[in-house]
């Protein structure tokens, strides 16, 4: 049984600019809770999601890259053992022009019922996508929320305790 979430947002931008915002770290850092990704964005390339201090939170590889239309990542968690042991999830990002808007669909799934990994990313994606939309439409991201920073610290502390 596959567990999955689908998130859709419509952004007043072009597919090219959206692709750049998803892959260029000067953009990513602004809307992804201050985290960055390391990747060459080519098929088969390793992918990591890192905290500001360089500690790796999630890692995987690029399964498909078709700029500016489709990006598929093999996505595993690295810090919390109970999430790590679930293995890899799959994150598909699809970009489609839709009149003056560009539609971004993020589908995150795993072949496991009641997945804690999917549960954990499901709360973060809506915030990331809202902030990405605001960044592209206004030039400024949503402020990194105090509560999010606290949550990140708790996650780090939990990981460090193991």
């Amino acid at each position, binding site marked *: 049984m596959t567990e*999955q979430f*689908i*998130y859709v947002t419509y952004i007043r931008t072009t597919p090219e600019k959206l692709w750049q915002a998803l892959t260029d770290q000067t953009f990513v850092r602004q809307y992804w809770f201050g985290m960055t990704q390391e990747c060459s964005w080519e098929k088969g390339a390793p992918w990591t999601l890192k905290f500001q201090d360089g500690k790796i939170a999630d890692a995987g590889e690029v399964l498909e890259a078709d700029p500016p239309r489709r990006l598929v990542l093999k996505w595993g968690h690295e810090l919390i053992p109970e999430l790590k042991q679930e293995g890899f999830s799959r994150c598909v990002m699809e970009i489609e022009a839709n009149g003056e*808007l560009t539609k971004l669909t993020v589908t995150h799934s795993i072949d496991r019922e009641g997945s804690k990994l999917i549960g954990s990313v499901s709360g973060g994606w*809506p*915030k990331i996508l*809202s902030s990405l939309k*605001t960044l592209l439409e206004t030039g400024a991201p949503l*402020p990194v929320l105090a509560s999010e920073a606290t949550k990140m610290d708790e996650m780090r502390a939990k990981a460090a305790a193991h």
Partner: protein
Amino acid sequence: MSMDAVFKALADPTRRQLLDRLQAQNGQTLASLCDGMQMSRQAVAKHLSQLEAANLVAVQWHGREKLHFLNPVPINEIAERWIGKYERHRVQALHDLKTKLEGNSDD
């Protein structure tokens, strides 16, 4: 994809109930969402299409099955628009208190 459409879609108890059901179990067909609803299949389909037009429901085809998924992104955009970074902690604390005092009912 206007905010008007989101508010209009959320202004109906049946549509909120459909979103609740998708939150409980994501990725359902029309037939499974109709199960237990006191209305015609056509009426449920119409409510779902309004939710889809407001981008509160995303659909995906699995072979011949059309699956419906809750899309919370527009609701997050509403929250971000009015809840400032300094108030969020307090709003969350009040929300947690309300949830605790009222049990799990969160209407």
